[in-house]
C-alpha cells in the first residue's frame, strides 16, 4: 500500500487559517489502512483544527467526507454536491488523491493533510516499512523475492557493502541489511550460486529517469 503520515497540526492550521469553510476529505483505501487519513482521522483532524482555531478566536466550518477512493475520478464526483460554499479543500489522501481533487475543482485551493511516504507493508501493528520503489522493471525474480533497490540504503544491486554488521545496515540498527536477508534466503532455497550473477546497470527509464510515467492499456482505454 501507499503509506502516509499526518502532517503536524501547526502546518495544517496555517493552511486553513484564511478560510471560513473548508471541506476535509478522507480516503477509504491505503491511508485508512495505515491510520493516516481515513474516516476516523478526518473526524479527529476536524475537531483538532476547530479547537485550535477557536483558541485564537476564529471559527471555521469543516465539512467532513471520506471517499471510497480519492485517486479515481468517479468517486471524486461525489464531492460535487458538497463543494458549494466551500472556500478550500483539505485532502487526507496520498498525493494522488490531492491531485485528483485539484484537477476536478479548478477554482478551489487544495491542501494536503498528510505526507505521502512510500510503498510499503505492515511489519507489525503500527509499523510500516518500505518495500518497493516502483522502478518499473521488477528484479525480485533474481534477488530471492527481496528488493535491494528499495531496501539497500545505497541501492546496491550486487551485494552488501562493507558496512553490513550482524544483519544490520550501517546507517541504523533499525534497518536490516537487505543483502543479508537476500543471502539468507538464497541459502534457504539452495540458490547460493545465484549470488554470483552480476546484475547489470539498470535502465532507469522504466523508473523516474524517463519522466512522468503512464500506463496505457489499449484494451481498456476508452
Amino acid at each position: 500500500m501507499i503509506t502516509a503520515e499526518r502532517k503536524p497540526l501547526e502546518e495544517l492550521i496555517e493552511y486553513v487559517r484564511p478560510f471560513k469553510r473548508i471541506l476535509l476529505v478522507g480516503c477509504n483505501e491505503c491511508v485508512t489502512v495505515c491510520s493516516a487519513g481515513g474516516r476516523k482521522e478526518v473526524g479527529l483532524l476536524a475537531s483538532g483544527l476547530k479547537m485550535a482555531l477557536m483558541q485564537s478566536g476564529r471559527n471555521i466550518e469543516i465539512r467532513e467526507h471520506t471517499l471510497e477512493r480519492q485517486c479515481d475520478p468517479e468517486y471524486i464526483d461525489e464531492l460535487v454536491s458538497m463543494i458549494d460554499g466551500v472556500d478550500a479543500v483539505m485532502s487526507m489522501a496520498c498525493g494522488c488523491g490531492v491531485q485528483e481533487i485539484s484537477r476536478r475543482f479548478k477554482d478551489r485551493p487544495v491542501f494536503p493533510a498528510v505526507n505521502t511516504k512510500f510503498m510499503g507493508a505492515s511489519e507489525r501493528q503500527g509499523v510500516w516499512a518500505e518495500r518497493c520503489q516502483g522502478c518499473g522493471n521488477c528484479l525480485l525474480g533474481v534477488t530471492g523475492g527481496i528488493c535491494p533497490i528499495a531496501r539497500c540504503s545505497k541501492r546496491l544491486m550486487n551485494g552488501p557493502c562493507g558496512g553490513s554488521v550482524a544483519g544490520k545496515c550501517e546507517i541504523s540498527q533499525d534497518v536490516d541489511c537487505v543483502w543479508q536477508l537476500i543471502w539468507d534466503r538464497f541459502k534457504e532455497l539452495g540458490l547460493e550460486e545465484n549470488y554470483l550473477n552480476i546484475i547489470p546497470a539498470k535502465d532507469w527509464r522504466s523508473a523516474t529517469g524517463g519522466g512522468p510515467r503512464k500506463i496505457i492499456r489499449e484494451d481498456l482505454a476508452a
Partner: protein
Amino acid sequence: MKTESRLEKVLASGNLAVTSECGPPRGCQPDKVREKGKYLEGIVDAVNVTDNQTAMVRMSSLAASAILKQEGLNPLFQMVTRDRNRLAMQADIIGAYSLGIDTMLCLSGDHTQFGDHPMAANVHDIDSIQLIQMVKTMRDEGKFQGGAELKGAPKMFIGAAANPFADPFELRVLRLAKKVAAGADFIQTQCIFNVDKFEKWMEGVRARGLHKQCYILAGITPMKSVGAARYMKNKVPGMDVPQELVDRMGSVPKEKQPEEGISICVETIERLKKVEGVAGFHIMAIDWEEKVEEIVERAGLLPRPQM
C-alpha cells in the same frame, strides 16, 4: 599488461606493491595536496586520492589527482557512485585519463548520513560492481556504458575494495569473485587488525583462485592512540579491531602510543607478507601521512622498485 600504470608494472614484476592515501583538503588549498604528496614521494607506488571520503565535501578527487600528477606522483583516482550518475562518472574518467591518470578505484562510497550533507540525495545510478564493468567496457571495448563508441579509450588499471570483516562473512569471498568477474585488476582491503580473520578470508580467496586473477593489497592503518583504537573498534561499521590490540595500545603511556601503533602496523605487515596471495600493502595513515615513510622503511619495503 593492460595499462601503463606504474602500479600494474610493480605488481606484474612480482614485487610487493605499496600504496598510500591522500585525503584532499576541505577548501581551495592546493598546497595542502602538494604537502601531503611530498611525504609520499618515492615511498609508495601510487597514492589513493579519496572522493568526498566519509561523505564530506572536499576538493574533487580528479583535481587533487591532477595536482599530484603534476608533482610527479602516481595518483590512484578514487570514484564513488554516491555523488554522480553514469554520465558524470564517464566524463570524469575520460578527463582523468586525459590528464595522465591511469589508475583508479571503484567504490560505492560512505552513506551521506555520515557526512556533512545528510540532506543530499544519494545518486547510486549504478553500484560499485557496475562501475567496474563500465570502466572495463570503456577501456577494453572502447565503448560508453550506453553502447556508443568512444574515441580514445581510457586505459585504466581498475581497482576495487574488499572488506573481509563485514557480514555476512561467508559472502565476502563471493563478493570479491563478483568484483573480479566484473573486471577488477586489483583490490585494496579494509584495514586489517584481525589478522586471523583475514587469513581465513584469504583461504577462501585462494580456494577460488581469485588471488591469481587479481592483485590483493592488504589494508593497513596505524593507530595513533588507545582512543583511536577504541573508536575504530566500537564506532566504525565493518571495522574489526581485536580487544587485545586496544589493550596493547592502552598498556603504554599516552606519549608512547603513536610509536606503539606504528610497531603494531609493522608487525602486521611482516605477518601478512607470509600470507599467500598478498601482493602488496595499502597504508591508510589518515592525516598522518608523514609516518608512512617510517612504516614502509621499517617493514623493509624501501627502496621502491624502479620501473
